[in-house]
């Protein structure tokens, strides 16, 4: 059996198992709480795993390993930012949100505000963040399939050339995520994420142990070999090859590069606690104590995983080599699967062993993408149904069954839109979309959430100003940044309307989001409602009246 057949078989097994679970979950899904929040019946540990499955995207697994393999130490910065970010969620957000919200991020933001404007703003921001993130994952899946299944340009697979196979993959992944969400709701999605988290952890742990074994468990030896093979020597193990580059003789560019590094760092650490698909995971547990436990488990699981990215990335640099990786994929996204193949050849024996390991890791990568896109589809369709349809359009005058039906239709619609957009965007470089999603989450959502929970005077005008201010600033700055135009690696390399010098807008847009929230509040004619704040405070801290 070739690696390609084995990958497909393993992935089909994963799909069949998760579909079976989804159908089982659909039988348990009767109420709106079941659909939106998995019946709030998951334990802290299960939800911790599911958070890991929701959070550790293909960008984490393939992307970080690839950046470390090609640019060395700088990839580790992502691992650190993505992990430290969880302290914001643990200390400031998770428990209070669990106690005061019901199904969506907007529940907390609109708690003490006028419903319509705040829910509309929060819903727009939820959908924008989720769609950006979703597109990046789906386009990534399309790009990966050709590489993981070894479909070279010109070659054919099941009668499809590489381009058709990409489109077929995007459609296939899109249909699966729609099925998981519409049929299984939050319960089905959660189980998919749990299974994926387990597979990803086992796969990464297996590779880490084999990499370390290849160097007789000498980390320093591994790093030395990686540095030597990269041709960059000690610099490969230091920050600076990719981010914050020093350009000799160009002080301005050097300054911008450094600012870009700081901007990326701050967006990574503040973005997580504003990602709607992560926030709604806190509603799947029975109480705030379980929400805390799930974040603690998530920190343990995610932290362990990001530590392993060091071994995967430097292992790929040492055992596969940068040249072989870039020959396969310029962005380095295939470093981890290629490393798996080398490890298989070395430890499991010959070509067959290599093919088996490659197939396992490739299937894990597809499972990873699938679990993340399902979570994103659920977050955006929940917001559309619960915030826009049930709260704004119907003013709460809607039956539970009617609301869930709309949520299912929304999931279908959002999935369909995502498929179409992803097919159009697949030739574009969309890697920046994840960074943009984090920047919008940190600039628009996080200020609104923190002010809502901790600032008594915060008003409706403040909440909408924070969300729109942060969102618009982040999107506009990215539109005029070098990642969209005016540089050879841009989305539109042949056009140039770039004037903003940084790739990541966070260092400007996050303070702007906080500033807008403050300005909107102090300039607002309508004062905050002290009774509603007292209610929010009492409920969020004691769990009284929690759903």
């Amino acid at each position, binding site marked *: 059996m070739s690696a390609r057949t084995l990958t497909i078989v393993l992935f089909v097994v994963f799909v069949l198992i998760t579909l079976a679970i989804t159908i089982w979950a659909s039988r348990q899904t009767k109420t709106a709480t079941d659909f939106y929040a998995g019946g709030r019946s998951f334990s802290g540990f299960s939800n911790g795993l599911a958070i890991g499955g929701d959070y550790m995207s293909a960008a984490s697994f393939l992307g970080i390993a690839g950046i470390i393999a090609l640019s060395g130490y700088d990839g580790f910065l992502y691992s650190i930012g993505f992990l430290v970010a969880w302290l914001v969620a643990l200390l400031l957000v998770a428990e209070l949100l669990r106690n005061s919200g019901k199904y969506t991020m907007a529940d907390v933001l609109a708690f003490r505000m006028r419903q319509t404007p705040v829910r509309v703003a929060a819903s727009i921001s939820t959908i924008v963040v989720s769609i950006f993130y979703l597109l990046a994952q789906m386009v990534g899946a399309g790009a990966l399939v050709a590489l993981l299944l070894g479909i070279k340009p010109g070659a054919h697979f099941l009668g499809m050339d590489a381009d058709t196979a990409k489109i077929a993959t995007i459609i296939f992944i899109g249909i699966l995520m729609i099925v998981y969400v519409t049929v299984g709701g939050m319960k089905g999605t959660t189980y998919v994420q749990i299974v994926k988290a387990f597979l990803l952890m086992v796969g990464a742990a297996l590779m880490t142990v084999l990499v370390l074994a290849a160097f007789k468990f000498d980390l320093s030896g591994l*790093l030395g070999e990686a540095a030597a093979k990269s041709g960059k020597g000690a610099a490969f193990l230091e920050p600076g090859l990719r981010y914050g580059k020093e350009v000799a003789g160009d002080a301005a560019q050097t300054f911008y590069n450094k600012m870009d590094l700081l901007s990326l760092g701050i967006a990574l650490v503040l973005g997580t606690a504003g990602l709607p698909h992560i926030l709604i995971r806190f509603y799947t547990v029975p109480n705030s104590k379980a929400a805390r436990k799930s*974040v603690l488990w998530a920190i343990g699981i995610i932290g362990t995983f990001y530590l392993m990215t060091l071994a995967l990335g430097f292992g790929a640099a040492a055992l596969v080599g940068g040249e072989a990786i870039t020959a396969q994929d310029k962005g380095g996204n295939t470093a981890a699967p290629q490393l798996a193949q080398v490890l298989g050849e070395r430890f499991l024996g010959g070509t067959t062993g290599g093919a088996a390991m490659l197939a396992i890791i490739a299937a894990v990568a597809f499972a990873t993408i699938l679990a993340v896109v399902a979570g994103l589809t659920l977050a955006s369709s929940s917001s559309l149904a619960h915030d826009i349809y049930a709260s704004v359009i119907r003013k709460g005058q809607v039956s539970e069954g009617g609301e869930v039906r709309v949520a299912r239709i929304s999931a279908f619609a959002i999935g369909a839109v995502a498929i179409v957009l992803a097919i159009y965007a697949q030739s574009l470089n969309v890697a920046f979309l994840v960074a943009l999603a984090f920047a919008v989450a940190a600039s628009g959502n996080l200020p609104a959430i923190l002010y809502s929970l901790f600032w008594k005077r915060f008003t409706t005008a403040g909440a909408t100003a924070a969300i729109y201010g942060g969102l618009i600033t982040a999107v506009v700055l990215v539109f005029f940044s070098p990642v969209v135009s005016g540089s050879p690696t841009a989305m539109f390399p042949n056009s140039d309307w770039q004037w903003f010098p940084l790739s990541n807008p966070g260092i400007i847009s996050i303070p702007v989001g906080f500033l807008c929230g403050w300005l909107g509040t102090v300039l607002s004619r309508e004062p905050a409602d002290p009774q509603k704040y007292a209610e929010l405070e009492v409920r969020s801290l004691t769990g009284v009246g929690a759903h």
Partner: protein
Amino acid sequence: MSTDAPDRYERIAESPEFAGLRRSLRRFVFPMTIAFFSWYALYVILSAYARDFMGTILFGNINVALVFGLLQFVTTFLIAWLYARYADRKLDPVAEDLNARIQAGEFDADPQPEEVKA
């Protein structure tokens, strides 16, 4: 819960027990947030501006940058553990006690209406 008087939550929020709970929470999470954010910011700033320092070899091929990065993992795990312990001991018992008393209606009906705040 029985009655839901409009000022019921304000009365709870102004009670000394609740003020104590709020203070206990904020006393831990605000300073800790500032601490871990500064510590992380220091790491990012050193990565941008103190390359030579970050590149200092400690032993073998292990340099300051790697150890600094790993220390971010250590502090994250440590802060998570400290918070879990603090919440377990200082926050949960008070929150559960208050919750039970609110559910029991202790803050609902006011026996002496003249003491109710406007």
